[in-house]
């Protein structure tokens, strides 16, 4: 098998592999599958048959215009398809396949093979949307064939790029040709096939190995890089109400939270609890229960807080499993949906304090992934009924969680007024929550001086504050009513990434809320802070979709490559299929939004014109389109006719018809066919090379070369007939292509 035949065959095989991947990966209409299969078979038979000197592929339409018109028609078909079927992605795939079928029938230039290669790359990428395990062998096959195709492409490119050692007509009496020159005699042997395929596979294996290993190699030096560790300006380990100032809206990402048991977002957002504070001294909250003690590690890197909950009770109650990728922070707190019971991950040690907060022993220096299992508390019916007798809390609870700062009489009075109709602690809490949410204004832009009593300032004077003011007010008000409560800090995640189904938590999502201890239910979460105006989700746009998609890819990279979890890798392969549908839905939606915007603008401008003129505008638009098409056609026709009827303007000066110009035109055309003339080669020698490389064209090339030599170097003026002859020959040459005719 000669190199060029092998090149053609491997190109067609490459197209076949990507087509199989596409068929397996996405649903395609049967007629398209049928036509593509037929086209592939024909092309393959044609490529194989070329060995025997015949071609089965009909080369009926040879003119470039025909192909351009067909491509345009296919494009219009694609537009109509995408508008009617409402599936932009699949319409695009169908368009791609139609393009590939057309290319398969139009493999004439070397460039056409490259186009085919590009189409197959897009097809493989599209097939990845619905990838499953079958994708792996196809990718390997595609890789090997792709390497082969490019390899053969390079080997069949004979001149120009290779270092050229010319024919030595010297005393050695032997004719030396570079390897690429007489490749007509070179064959693809079994050994070459084995070596090249083996090399391709080895490279693939090495690449996978490198991608698998390198990110996981520890550098042995903990990164102490100030720039990468996020200062938790939003979340802090003590809550100080006294210092006022405009809060920063820091958009840096603190963590990403993936809910393992559900693929949809919470309506109100996800609370991610960090720490709880029990003691308020009138200005700031501190954690008196901050003494930590370690949790013993159980098998599978699990740290469970209460072993008794690990049994059947856990299965019966609703619980959350979250996978959290935590960015480097300057706090050792582990976040999670309240209330965390189990933490699992590659953690050196986990500690817990009296407030139920989880800690690492030291803050992390690089992204850390862990899974937290939480049990959100619900209010039990026992707490909704009015108690027959006042409930007596445990002494420890009363000691820590009903403490109030001195001089809080005014606050206590307000609390009594607000909750005068409430019969249960839960109703009291609801009453206070509603009161705060209704009568106070949320703002982050607080200006003011050092305050002596920030709580009273908020409740009675300013009536404007942010989450910490709300939460403190609620907690202290409830405490004056005898309801144990505490302040919890953490993040309220609202930003949902649809592409990866996870929450993105940013520094600016830092939040504070209240936890209330109910006699039967235990600690429950309540949040008096109303949704801020600033928290309104920005309008969905392409840019946002793009950033989300990128963030998703980043998470995937971190998860799949950096965080070393083989189980997760398998899960990802399974999940790709599910996610693929969602992604394609999102992409489609984005395009629809874009199209909708364009359509809206058009409609608006049409409305501006008025309904009377709208019809005229449409007519004008259609006329414009028709004119454009007409001009395009004329331009194409002129271009074609320039090539064919060049002989008409003979006898011109250099640049428009002289023999030197014709010769240079011939050289430039030959170089598009992969036959470039090196500058140090003489005209006769080059014509000899053409005879070996492209026998069909050699008579034409020799004729032009000899005329060129005669006038250029012999200074023999050419006759008019000779000029015409040269022009005709040039036209003949341009009607030939190097590959199709072999």
């Amino acid at each position, binding site marked *: 098998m000669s190199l060029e035949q092998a090149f053609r065959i491997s190109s067609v095989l490459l197209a076949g592999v990507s087509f199989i991947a596409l068929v397996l990966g996405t649903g395609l209409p049967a007629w398209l599958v049928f036509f593509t299969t037929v086209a592939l078979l024909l092309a393959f038979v044609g490529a194989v048959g070329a060995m025997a000197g015949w071609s089965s592929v009909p080369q009926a339409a040879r003119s470039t215009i025909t192909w351009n018109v067909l491509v345009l028609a296919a494009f219009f078909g694609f537009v109509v398809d995408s508008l009617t079927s409402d599936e932009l992605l699949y319409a695009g795939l169908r368009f791609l396949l139609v393009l590939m079928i057309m290319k398969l029938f139009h493999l004439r230039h070397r460039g056409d093979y490259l186009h085919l290669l590009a189409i197959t790359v897009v097809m493989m990428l599209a097939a990845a949307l619905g990838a499953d395990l079958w994708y792996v062998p196809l990718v390997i096959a595609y890789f090997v064939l792709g390497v082969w195709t490019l390899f053969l492409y390079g080997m069949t490119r004979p001149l120009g790029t290779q270092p050229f050692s010319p024919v030595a007509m010297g005393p050695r*009496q032997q004719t030396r040709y570079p390897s690429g020159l007489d490749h007509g005699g070179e064959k693809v042997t079994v050994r070459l096939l084995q070596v090249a395929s083996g090399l391709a596979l080895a490279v693939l294996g090495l690449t996978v190995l490198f991608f698998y290993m390198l990110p996981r190699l520890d550098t042995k030096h903990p990164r102490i890089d100030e720039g990468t560790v996020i200062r938790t300006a939003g979340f802090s380990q003590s809550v100080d109400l006294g210092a006022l100032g405009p809060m920063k809206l820091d958009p840096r990402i603190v963590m990403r939270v993936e809910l393992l048991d559900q693929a949809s977002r919470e309506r109100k957002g996800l609370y991610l609890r960090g720490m709880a504070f029990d003691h308020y001294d009138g200005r700031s909250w501190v954690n008196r229960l901050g003494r930590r003690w370690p949790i013993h590690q159980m098998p599978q890197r699990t740290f469970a807080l209460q072993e008794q909950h690990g049994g059947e009770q856990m299965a019966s109650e609703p619980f959350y499993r979250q996978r959290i990728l935590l960015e480097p922070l300057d706090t050792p707190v582990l976040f999670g949906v309240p209330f965390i019971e189990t933490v699992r991950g590659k953690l050196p040690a986990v500690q817990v304090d009296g407030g139920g907060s989880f800690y690492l022993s030291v803050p992390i220096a690089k992204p850390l992934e862990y899974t937290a299992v939480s049990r959100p508390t619900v209010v039990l019916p026992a707490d909704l009924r009015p108690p027959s007798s006042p409930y007596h809390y445990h002494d420890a609870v009363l000691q820590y969680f009903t403490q109030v700062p001195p001089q809080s009489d005014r606050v206590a009075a307000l609390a009594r007024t607000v909750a005068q109709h409430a019969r249960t602690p839960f109703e009291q809490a609801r009453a206070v929550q509603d009161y705060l949410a209704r009568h106070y204004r949320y703002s982050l832009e607080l200006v003011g001086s050092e305050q002596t009593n920030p709580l009273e300032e908020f409740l009675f004077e300013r009536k404007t504050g942010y989450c910490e003011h709300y939460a403190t007010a609620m907690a202290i008000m409830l405490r004056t009513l005898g309801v144990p409560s505490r302040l919890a800090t953490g993040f309220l995640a609202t930003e949902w990434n649809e592409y990866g189904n996870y929450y993105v938590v940013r520094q600016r999502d830092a939040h504070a809320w209240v936890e209330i201890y109910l006699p039967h239910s235990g600690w429950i979460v309540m949040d008096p802070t109303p949704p801020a105006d600033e928290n309104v989700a920005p309008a969905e746009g392409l840019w946002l979709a793009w950033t989300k998609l990128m963030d998703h890819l980043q998470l995937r990279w971190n998860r799949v490559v950096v965080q070393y979890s083989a189980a997760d890798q398998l899960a990802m392969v399974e999940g790709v299929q599910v996610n693929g549908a969602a992604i394609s839905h999102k992409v489609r939606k984005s395009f629809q939004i874009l199209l909708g915007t364009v359509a809206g603008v058009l409609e608006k401008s049409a409305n501006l014109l008025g309904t009377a003129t709208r019809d005229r505008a449409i007519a004008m638009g259609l006329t414009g389109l028709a004119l454009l098409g007409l001009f395009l056609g004329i331009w194409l026709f002129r271009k074609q006719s320039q090539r064919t009827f060049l002989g008409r303007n003979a006898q011109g000066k250099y640049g428009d018809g002289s023999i*030197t110009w014709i010769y240079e035109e011939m050289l430039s055309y030959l170089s598009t066919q992969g036959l470039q003339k090196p500058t140090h080669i003489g005209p006769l020698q080059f014509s000899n090379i053409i005879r070996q490389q492209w026998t069909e064209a050699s008579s034409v090339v020799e004729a032009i070369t000899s005329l060129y030599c005669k006038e250029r170097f012999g200074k023999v003026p050419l006759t008019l007939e000779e000029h015409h002859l040269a022009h005709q020959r040039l036209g003949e040459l341009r009607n030939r292509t190097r590959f199709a005719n072999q």
Partner: protein
Amino acid sequence: MTSTEAIRSIQDNIARVIKGKPHAIELTLVCLLARGHLLLEDVPGVGKTTLAHSLARSLDCSFKRIQFTSDLLPSDIVGVSIFNRQKQAFEFVRGPIFANIVLADEINRTTPKTQSSLLEAMSEAQISVDNQTYPLSQPFMVIATQNPSEYHGTFPLPESQLDRFLMRLRIGYPAPDEERKILARTPSLRPAEELQPVVTAQEVLELQGQADQVFMDESLTDYILSLVQATRHTELLSLGVSPRGGLALSRAAKALALVRGRTYCLPDDIRELAPIVLSHRVMVARSQGFGLQNFGQAERIIQDIIDSVPVPV
């Protein structure tokens, strides 16, 4: 008979004896038509002598062969004056140099003194003995041979003498098919003797005149110039090509164009001839290898230079 036909008939005639070497025959003719001398450098037995002999036979020219040995004297080449008793005077007896085609076999085996006696003959086509100048017969061509594989007891040709050869050529072994034909041929002791002349010496002189008339475009002269300049400026050569070398290339290119039936030169002619015409006129720099006559290395360097100079378009 046109010039093309004449040249063709000479080629065909020689090819009857020298099988499978049309290129060597063509270049020998080029050398003849450019009024040059030829240095054949090859191992024994590839047909150097036969080539020279059959060329002489085809041209209807006189042919002399001188076997160069270490004890050969200049007078053995140019001739000697002998006292004639009858005439009571010294009489010059002409040496073997007085022939149209002179084969100087194994020229590097003789002493420099004897070698240099060829100098005047080769460059001026005349010799001077005893203050008497004798013109040599025209056409005059020296075909010298030397064996590249043997160096013991040889005197390598001085640069000045090498410069006087138009080209240095290897014949090379014949291709296997051709060699089979040679072996299968009816053995003949002196195959060249059986050749019949196809052109006369006068016609050769006319052909030489036509070769001078071949047109060479200015751009090609510049091309030769840039090749020559390149050999002088490269670090790989300690001695570049002399102006005589450039002139030789120009003459050889014209002769080749004539042999190929053209009335004008092409860049291809120059490209093809440059390694043969130039490589024995340069000295390879010490950094590029030892040996005074490192011809193979010189050829490679010249070839590289040719490949680096763009041809005129």
